[in-house]
């Protein structure tokens, strides 16, 4: 178990590009639309079109392409599983067969189709997470929630909790590392035995961690109240989100993508 090493691989790549400077709300809407649309794709012409769209996005983001492929590599198991599911699903004419396995043309078509769908969805999600920092994402979500008439109090609390959580991830990762080292030096074992053995081994790690977390939360609450924190009412923002012309154009363009799928081609 290595807590710190995992954390430092955060997704966000700070750059100064068109996509980075877009409003987070725009990017969230664009992503939602794109992912929905990818599910509705019916033929390979549409795939070519959306492949082009995603490629343009990847170039516009000015993030090295290797970052996108890293995201794909992390999910190779899912992709491989899908391919295995599809390739033997049968139907149509047999193209190739050995022993009990038969590979048919319909199966090959389906395999390519579904794998592309999976890859497109992962790439689309990467475009969002590589160009938007989690804090901006939380801000965008908060203001989107307000657009959909979620009470201000709730949306504010939600984004506050996300900000707290995001800020505490590295702190708790360091804490976890310390507790683990301390318990290892006392002879605890974390990575041996079956699942039950491991679950039991986690207990000396988890109790100090959670007790520490409760203490941290308590100190944070006291510090916030000492600075007169009282929720959403009367609170203003340092960085205001406002939609620019490019954002509006982008949103319109993303809704136009729905037409491409719905209209018969």
């Amino acid at each position, binding site marked *: 178990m290595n807590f710190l090493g995992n954390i430092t*691989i955060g997704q966000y790549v700070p750059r100064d590009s068109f996509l980075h400077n877009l409003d987070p709300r725009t990017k969230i809407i664009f992503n939602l639309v794109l992912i929905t649309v990818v599910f509705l794709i019916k033929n390979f012409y549409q795939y070519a079109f959306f492949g082009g769209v995603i490629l343009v996005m990847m170039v516009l983001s000015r993030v090295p392409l290797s970052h996108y492929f890293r995201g794909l590599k992390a999910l190779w198991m*899912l992709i491989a599983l899908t391919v295995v599911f599809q390739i033997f699903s049968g139907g149509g004419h047999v193209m190739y067969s050995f022993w009990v396995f038969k590979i048919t043309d319909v199966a090959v078509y389906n395999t390519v189709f579904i794998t592309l769908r999976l890859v497109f969805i992962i790439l689309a999600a990467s475009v969002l997470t590589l160009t938007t920092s989690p804090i901006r994402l939380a801000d965008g979500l908060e203001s989107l929630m307000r657009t959909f008439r979620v009470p201000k109090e709730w949306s504010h609390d939600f984004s506050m909790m996300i900000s707290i959580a995001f800020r505490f*991830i590295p702190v708790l990762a360091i804490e976890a590392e310390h507790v683990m080292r301390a318990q290892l030096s006392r002879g605890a074992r974390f990575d041996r035995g079956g*699942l039950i053995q491991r679950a039991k081994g986690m*207990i000396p790690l988890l109790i100090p961690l959670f007790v520490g977390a409760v203490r941290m*939360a308590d100190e944070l609450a006291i510090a916030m109240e000492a600075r007169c924190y009282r929720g959403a009412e009367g609170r203003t923002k340092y960085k205001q989100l406002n939609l620019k012309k490019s954002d509006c154009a982008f949103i319109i363009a993303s809704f136009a993508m729905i037409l491409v799928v719905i209209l018969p081609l």
Partner: protein
Amino acid sequence: MTVNKTKKLTIIGVFSAMAVVLMLVEIPIPQLLGFKYDPSDIAALLVGFMIGPIPGILTVLIKDLLYFAIRGTDVVGIFMNAAAGSMLVGFSALFYRKRKTKTTAVVSLSLATLLLVVGMDALNMLVYPPYLKVSYMFIFKNYLWVITIFNLVKAIVDGFVTFLIYKKTSNVFKLEAWKTTNRKWRSSEK
């Protein structure tokens, strides 16, 4: 026991951060292809037991959102994880809130495990055939047992560990909450 709002906010925030850290642990289970066990739901279960079902579900949602933001994995997998976590945490916390005893804790965790297994089977049957374009029979025959066993093992381990560590964590929580709500705590402490 009443907990003030800022305290609830910070507890949910810090525990979701804890859940994200634990989610990165990822113990692979080689027998079940591709599935990885992560102890993150324990943190959400603790919040659910300490404060209530809605904060527990919020913890799960924030955890998945942040995990998506720092890892950028596939959307459907994250959605399934959120659904599974909300089912487990929401139901067990709702049941436990009425009578807080050890027996209710065990009963609520077992019932929530059953609900999780049945619910996730149903949800997988609903989502995966159209998503991966395979027949319902195929998923039912070849894949459903993997999902069932995985969720069963996950929920049992989570419940077991939560049951063992809940009391120790909540004692500290109650003490700290009592300190902040009772302004005269200094005079009553030795």
